[in-house]
């Protein structure tokens, strides 16, 4: 056999370089298959996913340690199993009943506060498993649980009795601000122009914001995040430095009020008549700026 044939077929012996090539090829092949089969998080497998994953792995590893394993056939079967799972999942979208037969559907374990022991048996779960699942969902007390369902991917989901659910701002009749997705605007010292622009900001704007925080060069920023209110949070490479914060407009008002109070203090504490007048004048100026800012800031936020 030629060397290439030896790598791909089933020779009685294979040079170590041949195994190396098989290893690299199998790795790349598996990465592609995994990408095609995904995205499924590890820990979110159905029983079938699990068995298929182990089998595909076993096929790959056999060819990497035994030359007499037919490598091409290994690659073929790995791909075949991956595609069978993909097709099964795709069919399951169109025919949900098929999916329930093959993979199983959700199973109710607790209904209206009562544990369904027959279903626990069907799920092959004992009470330890059930209680563990409940604790992990912050429902350690059975009396708090209205519904508990065993999901096909193995997780237990819990719906608590409405009295026992956490309080939401809605329940307290609190008005909250819109919370959108934050964007990463600086990563590894580089400004992410596309992210900025898709939020409607410019690089200049960002550099100003950073400057305000005491950061002169984006290169010292390892990561910076922009929230839905236009606030920038920057983390620097140098962890010894204080994390810089940018001032919101409300913080500015508080700052000015503090300055105003300090100036009034200075005026009281000084014996010097000229200084007293100076500080008092400044206190008045800052006081009027605060007065003028308050309505302005409400306006700006409405915009």
């Amino acid at each position, binding site marked *: 056999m030629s060397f290439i044939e030896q790598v791909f077929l089933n020779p009685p012996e294979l040079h170590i370089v041949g195994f190396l090539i098989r290893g690299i090829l199998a790795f790349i092949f598996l990465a592609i298959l995994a990408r095609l089969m995904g995205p499924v998080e590890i820990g979110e497998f159905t029983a079938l996913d699990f068995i298929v994953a182990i089998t595909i792995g076993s096929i790959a590893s056999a060819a990497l340690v035994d030359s007499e394993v037919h490598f091409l056939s290994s690659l073929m079967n790995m791909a075949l199993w991956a595609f069978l799972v993909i097709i099964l999942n795709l069919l399951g979208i169109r025919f949900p009943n098929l999916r329930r037969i093959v993979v199983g559907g959700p199973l109710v374990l607790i209904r209206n506060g009562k544990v369904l022991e027959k279903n626990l048996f069907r799920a092959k779960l004992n009470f330890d498993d059930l209680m563990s699942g409940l604790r992990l969902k912050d429902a350690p007390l059975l009396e708090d649980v209205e519904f508990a369902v065993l999901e096909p991917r193995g997780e237990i989901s819990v719906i608590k009795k409405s009295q026992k659910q956490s309080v939401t701002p809605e329940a307290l009749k609190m008005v909250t601000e819109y919370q959108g997705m934050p964007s990463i605007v600086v990563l590894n010292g580089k400004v992410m122009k596309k992210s900025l622009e898709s939020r409607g900001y410019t690089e200049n704007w960002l550099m*100003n914001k950073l400057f*305000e925080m005491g950061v002169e060069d984006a290169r010292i920023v390892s990561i910076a995040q922009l929230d839905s209110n236009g606030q920038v949070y920057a983390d620097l490479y140098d962890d010894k430095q204080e994390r810089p914060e940018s001032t919101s407009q409300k913080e500015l008002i508080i*700052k000015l009020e503090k300055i105003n109070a300090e100036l009034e203090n200075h005026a009281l*504490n000084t014996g010097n008549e000229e200084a007293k007048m*100076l500080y008092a004048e400044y206190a008045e100026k*800052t006081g009027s700026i605060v007065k003028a*800012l308050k309505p*302005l800031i409400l*306006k700006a936020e409405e*915009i």
Partner: protein
Amino acid sequence: MTVGKKLKTTLSSLKSAQADLESFALETENQIVKDSFSQFADQTKSIVEGLKTRIQEIEEEEPQYKG
């Protein structure tokens, strides 16, 4: 804290407030708001200058107040 130190604290808060006002002026697209912020920034700037001068005076006349 000495007098000098207290005044310097106020001074640095003022400087930072001035910077905030200037950057808010830059950020906003509303022309009226922009002008107001710029105006406040200028006012704050003149307070900063005045306070700086005063601190210098104190430090020259009465070195024990240096902070």
